[in-house]
């Protein structure tokens, strides 16, 4: 009897300690998750673990419930208003039609892959025939030449934007560091930065096309000309945020740190890698995040004109089709572009959170 009564409080204490440990772990994971944009799961997990459930559920309601309700309200409003607007391509599509077209695009993709499989089979048969006829050196293996499906186009767009963005970062970061460290360099570069910054991608595109045509003369190289045209246009428009933010970040490092560097007689390279870069990183990453955002927007416009087979070309071709499904397909593209842009931004934010030192770490 006494044994049971005695162990009860100890059991409770054990449970309390365990709960405290779980809560601690959830909170730690929570910091990591919020960097990935999944911070709304933390209150739910805490509520499940029993840590002041009412307060946590209210928190979860704010983080998850309210946005969901807002999205639902938006969908309902859209479904109501859309059929009221008649265009020459039919009524503006509501959420149902847009979903239908999204499904259509997926089915198109599946059908195209089926055609590709059939093509590969035919190719195998053909080559087998050649081998049988003793013409083994006439055997050719060729890629399928069908149209790029929606998923292929999304992937092309992502590749193009990353290529353009990387080139922009490689150009902008060193110049930004130089401008930040040396007021003379800043004065030299500043006028050009200010003049070229506001130029729209559509104005750059013809010039880029001409230059690429003249300089990149092969048509069988690693990159196609349309890919280069789009990627370089993205570079030209997205290098400014990185450049300006890097310059600002470098220029505003703590004067004490600069003095320490002087006292220790640090070489320029060491100064840059050990002092300047780490303290300027938050602003550099902010700049990169902005650049990627701008680059993604610019890419869609650039692709429409440069004919790079990505999302921009998809929107343009659908507009040219003028079929009754075109508007809905274009809206699917709009949502895709938005969602991918959001994911890219989240990715950059996560990388930024990983690299920067803040009071929490």
């Amino acid at each position, binding site marked *: 009897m006494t044994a049971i009564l005695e162990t009860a409080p100890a059991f409770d204490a054990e449970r309390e300690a365990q709960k405290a440990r779980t809560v601690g772990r959830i909170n730690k994971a929570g910091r990591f998750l919020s960097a990935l944009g999944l911070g709304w799961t933390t209150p739910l997990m805490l509520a499940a673990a029993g840590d002041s459930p009412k307060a946590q559920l209210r928190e979860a309601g704010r983080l998850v419930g309210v946005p969901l309700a807002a999205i639902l309200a938006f969908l309902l409003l859209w479904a109501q208003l859309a059929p009221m607007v008649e265009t*020459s*391509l039919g009524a503006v599509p509501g959420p149902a039609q847009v979903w239908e077209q999204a499904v259509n695009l997926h089915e*198109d993709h599946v059908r195209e892959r089926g055609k590709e499989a059939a093509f590969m089979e*035919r190719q*195998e*048969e*053909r080559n*087998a*025939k*050649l*081998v*049988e*006829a003793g*013409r083994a050196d*006439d055997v*050719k293996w*060729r*890629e399928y*030449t*069908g*149209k790029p499906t929606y998923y292929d186009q999304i992937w092309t767009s992502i590749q193009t934007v990353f290529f353009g963005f990387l080139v922009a970062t490689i150009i902008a970061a060193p110049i930004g560091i130089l401008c930040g460290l040396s007021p003379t360099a800043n004065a030299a570069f500043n006028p050009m930065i200010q003049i070229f910054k506001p130029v729209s991608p559509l104005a750059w595109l013809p010039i880029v096309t001409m230059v690429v*045509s003249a300089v990149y003369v092969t*048509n069988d190289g690693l990159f*196609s*000309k*349309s890919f280069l045209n789009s990627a370089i246009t993205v570079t030209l428009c997205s290098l400014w945020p990185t450049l300006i933010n890097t310059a600002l970040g470098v220029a505003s490092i703590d004067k004490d740190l600069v003095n320490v560097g002087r006292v220790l007689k640090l070489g320029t390279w060491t100064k840059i890698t050990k002092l300047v870069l780490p303290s300027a990183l938050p602003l550099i990453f902010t700049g990169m995040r902005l650049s990627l955002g701008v680059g993604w927007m610019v890419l869609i416009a650039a692709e*429409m*004109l440069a*004919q790079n*087979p990505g999302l921009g070309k998809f929107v*343009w*071709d*659908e*507009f*040219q*089709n*003028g*079929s*009754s*499904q*075109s508007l809905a*397909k274009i809206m699917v593209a709009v949502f895709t572009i938005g969602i991918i842009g959001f994911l890219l931004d989240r990715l950059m934010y996560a990388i930024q959170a990983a690299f920067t030192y803040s009071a929490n770490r």
Partner: protein
Amino acid sequence: MKLLTKLAAVALVGLTAGAASADMLDVEKDELKFGFIKLTDMAPLAIAYEQGYFEDEGLFVTLEPQANWKVLLDRVIDGQLDGAHMLAGQPLAATIGFGTEAHVITPFSMDLNGNGVTVSNAVWDAMKPHIPMADGKPVHPISAAALKPVVQQYRAEGKPFNMGMVFPVSTHNYELRYWLAAGGLKPGYYSPENVTGQIDADVLLSVTPPPQMPATMEAGTIYGYCVGEPWNQQAVFKGIGVPVITDYEIWKNNPEKVFGLTAEFAEQYPNTTLALTKALIRAAIWLDENDNANRPEAVKILARSEYVGADAEVIANSMTGTFEYEKGDKRAVPDFNVFFRYFATYPYYSDAVWYLTQMRRWGQIAEQKPDAWYDAVAKKVYRPDIYLKAAEMLVAEGKAEKADFPWDTDGYRAPQDEFIDGVAYDGRQPNAYLEAFPIGLKGAQKVVGGRVDG
């Protein structure tokens, strides 16, 4: 299991080996990219791909829709595209240096007819009182003389009368101008300094890409346009305009699109050029086979979003032999699109010369040229030698009939007079032809400043 099936396939196939592969040309370049604009007459390209005719010749072709005619031409000249669906005037203009200069040739004419002129509802209502009626329906062909009072009224009100066409050297530009001039309206001249084509014009013509035409007309920027299908029927379907005339009625069986490649490509890859011409001829034969029996299937293929993409009902009309003018006024036009009949695919020099005469008529060719010049340019750009070689091969393979090809022609059709204004055209005498028109440059006339001189 998979290996077993493969071995079985090889064994089965091995029994029938040899014969088919022996016919294939030894193509130098087998991975090709062709461009096109979303119009129903890109059909030979789509059919050659979908029916496997390209694959039969050992070619692996990617078909890519282009943003507009200028981008398409530039990419062919640049080498990004190996060949493309082109306006009949593009290879000629490029070779003589009007616009981007490059030696572009064509071994294959893609189709005859296929265009229409559409006007907005408001303009149609204003035209109707001037159009002769029979049985309550307008008498066709409708002359631009019915449009003349409407244009005069608009100009009196201070509104410039704008119309759209697809490209400065497009068949649509020349056909629209021909129709306007035949009705007594001046469509404007070009000069070396001013290439807008609106010098001294009653009707101002400007460029709009085909798919944007219905939207531009709806917006009121243009009051009418000349374009290929499906954009005329699209206007009827959407209730935003009325087609008044088809180019079949302006010039019966006029040449429309050609397949263009750079001269460089044809020189470097002669076998490839022959192979692609063979595939295209087969596609054209299929399209016109058995009195257009395959057209409904062609419509289904063209309605796919990677080809023309418009709704199938809109494409079906013109491809299957009817054309809807006013809503509800459907008339039979069995030859609205001709892909192979009447030797449609043979690249006649006289067709090239007609386009050159129209370029001269409106000032794109600024100075008078002797008849021999027209002949020389036509021979440089149009390549019936490649066409006939490809046709020979097809006849030998049993894929085409000997009677379907004009083996004995010298490249010039017999004089034609089935034009809306009745002026006869003899390709061997371009300058005499130009003299016959009341409106248009003739002889040694030039456009200087804002007027015609001489």
